[in-house]
């Protein structure tokens, strides 16, 4: 009954209705796509690195230069371990999300015919798996004898490698990874001795699988002498970042410290652009919903004033306050629904454009009902004030203004 009244009245202000429908449609399309992008970035930012993030601090230096200085790395590590609160200290390369990585595509057979997808390299001095908090889930960890130097191209000489579960399952599905081999050059092969649960690489890219990494054992060498990583208690982090940097500077006044800090901050810094995009989209969505709500309220207010007489007549003819309230609510629901239907088409079109230009996946339809509920709610909230004012119009208005 109500709906028929509402439908009958709508064509009387076609232009304004159409405008609102279009506005809701565009808002819906932006809302759904923005929510989708925000969700994508948040998922990315929540990536599990597999390491004991909140207990790690690092100091990045310019390294020791030539290989004849490699003993300085050992000296520095011993000194760092002497700081109160440092549980372990290692030199390493390939800390997850450190914003650079060495990547290689290993061969899986000696004849160099089968090649694996790109794998990120992680290498460190004795004890680095424990420092990072990596647990061996199969096979064994590195023994002291496993640690060795690197060749002219910085490839580890040690012939053993540890891989995360994800890579083991990709390279040798259904087989025991222990004892399998990968080749990095015709003459340099590595045998898998252990499997860790997970560790991600230093730099993520669309065509890289984050968890495809390989862990190597190196003794202190100049090539990987820039990054010192320490395991400390969370409450000691700030103090030890400062103290370890000061200690290293005392040991070698000529040393350059390029960066230092705790791992959690470094990780946040890696995702700062994603965070900035997510926040901007959120701000735009909030502002857009606000503007839309205010617009709807403004229009509804106008309609209520314009129809005061009609409302009075309806009230005089027996319509209750509730009827009038529901009339405006139903009208708003219909207009918003029209906008949502049109908005769905627009959303798909916008998503198609975004997938073409920004390597975004297709939008799941699950966003439609969520976006629809949000806009219905916004519409109902916006119309409530004017609708209540309409409901308050006394029947006597009908007699006055005719």
């Amino acid at each position, binding site marked *: 009954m109500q709906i028929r009244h509402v439908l009958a009245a709508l064509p009387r202000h076609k232009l304004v209705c159409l*405008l*609102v429908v*279009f506005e809701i449609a565009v808002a819906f399309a932006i809302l759904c796509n923005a929510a989708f992008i925000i969700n994508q970035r948040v998922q990315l930012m929540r990536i599990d690195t597999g390491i004991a993030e909140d207990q790690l601090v690092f100091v990045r230096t310019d390294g020791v230069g*030539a290989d004849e200085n490699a003993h300085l790395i050992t000296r520095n590590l011993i000194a760092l371990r002497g700081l109160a609160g440092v549980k372990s200290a290692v030199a390493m390369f390939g800390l997850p999300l450190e914003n650079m990585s060495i990547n290689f595509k290993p061969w899986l057979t000696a004849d160099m015919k089968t090649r694996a997808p790109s794998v990120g390299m992680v290498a460190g001095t004795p004890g680095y798996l424990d420092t990072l908090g990596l647990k061996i889930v199969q096979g064994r960890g590195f023994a002291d004898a496993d640690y060795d130097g690197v060749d*002219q*191209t910085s490839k580890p000489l040690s012939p053993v490698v540890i891989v995360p579960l994800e890579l083991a399952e990709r390279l040798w599905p259904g087989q025991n990874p222990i004892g399998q081999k990968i080749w990095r*050059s015709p003459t340099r092969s590595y045998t898998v001795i252990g499997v860790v649960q997970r560790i991600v690489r230093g730099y993520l890219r669309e065509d890289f699988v984050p968890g495809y990494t390989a862990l190597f054992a190196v003794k202190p060498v100049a090539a990987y002498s820039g990054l010192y990583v320490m395991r400390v208690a969370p409450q000691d982090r700030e103090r030890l970042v400062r103290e370890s940097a000061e200690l290293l500077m005392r040991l070698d006044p000529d040393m350059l410290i390029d960066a230092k800090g705790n791992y959690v901050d470094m990780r946040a810094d890696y995702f*700062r652009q994603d965070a900035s995009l997510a926040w901007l989209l959120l701000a735009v969505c909030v502002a857009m919903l606000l503007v839309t709500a205010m617009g709807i309220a*403004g*229009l509804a207010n106008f309609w209520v004033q314009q129809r005061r007489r009609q409302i009075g007549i309806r009230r005089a003819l027996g319509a209750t306050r509730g009827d009038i309230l529901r009339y405006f609510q139903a009208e708003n629901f219909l207009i918003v629904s029209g906008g949502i239907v049109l908005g769905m088409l627009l959303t798909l079109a916008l998503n198609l454009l975004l997938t073409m230009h920004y390597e975004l996946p297709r939008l799941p339809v699950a966003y439609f009902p969520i976006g629809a509920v949000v806009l219905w709610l916004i519409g109902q909230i916006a119309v409530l004030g004017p609708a209540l004012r309409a409901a308050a119009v006394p029947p006597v208005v009908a007699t006055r203004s005719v």
Partner: protein
Amino acid sequence: MLAYYLGLALHSLKQNRVLTALMVLAMGLGIGASMTTLTVFHLLSGDPLPGRSGQLFYPQLDPTPTAAAVLPGNMNYIDAVNLWQAKRADRQAIMVGGNIKTKAAQTGARPMSLHTLATTADFFPMFGVRFTQGNAWTPADDLAKARVAVISRSASNRLFHGESGLGQNIRLGQWDFRVVGVIDDWRPTPHFYELDRESYGGGDEVFIPFLTSRDLAKLGVTGYSLNCYGNTTDDLHLENQPCLWLSFWVELDNSAKAQAYRQFLDNYAREQQVLGRYAQAGPPRTALPDVMQWLDQNGVVPSDVSLKTWIALGFLLVCLMNTTGLLLVKFLRRTTEISVRRALGASRQQIFMQCLVEAVIVGMAGGALGLLLALAGLWGIRHTPADYADLAHLDLPMFAATFVISLAVSLVAGLLPAWRACHIAPALQLKVI
């Protein structure tokens, strides 16, 4: 007449302050968001060397064994040196960068990590780099592998504590270089000639001859990304390694020369195929983009920045429709007043103009609010750690654009409502009163 419309519009806007405030706020938010993101986009997509970029070209060759979808972005040593020695362009330079530990050569000086570029003599005149003291090194210095350096003014100030660095020695790694020139701080935006490091960061601070840097391979100037397409045997001595790591730029002063250089590149690639250096058969894979094409090709503007711009413009569209709706009801509500004016002799055009003036006032007020919001937004961006953060300022063109966009948006928003308003019939409405 316009003054009268202005008076009428202001009167009408004052009559309904809430509605006016709503419209101005919506326009302000939309314009503010759009101008903030547009300014960043404008800044990042600009021409790094206006007036010169059309004559600078980036030759591309493909020595790799398999044809990828895009041509390699760097050259290997042999190709770069061959093209450099061929001297077929008006000017040409090889370049590769790295962060190198640098200090003044006297004892007790503190080292610092400086962006160092190993290049050849033509670099400076080719890119129009201005010297404040001294000169570039000569082509003879290049071949002699001279230990000379050019430094930026700010590097000179930091290394020599404000004293002139000209003629002094600086130590890179463990080797001393004599400073032969000091350049004005130079920061092409984006950092077009070497895109592997952050594209909008500071300029290079130390310049040394390329062949000298090869002579001192342990200095480690091997670029910010090393891309090898075969088995490598050495990470430092890259001369014979199948690795792409060098940039090579040429200056060609007119299109005939550019055409001739394209021909030369093709011939060179064919020659290398015959020599067996290039494994790929078939027509030569070469290209010669100019600066802007090269930046385009590399998608140097971060895709997030353009995504933000599009979202903000979408938001502006919502704000625009919102304002249109509100203007429409505002004008229709004054049906009586307009019909009286029509009955008293106002023409349709006059009503139309009057309504548009009102829309433009709203738009301009929104534009002013938007400008404030954009300034606040850019202030916020300057306090983020993005590499372009310190560049985020509203320049004169964008300041003007704010008002042009406000005017355009308010005219578009006001068009439909004004058109409706001027079609209100005079007599019919008079009867109602």
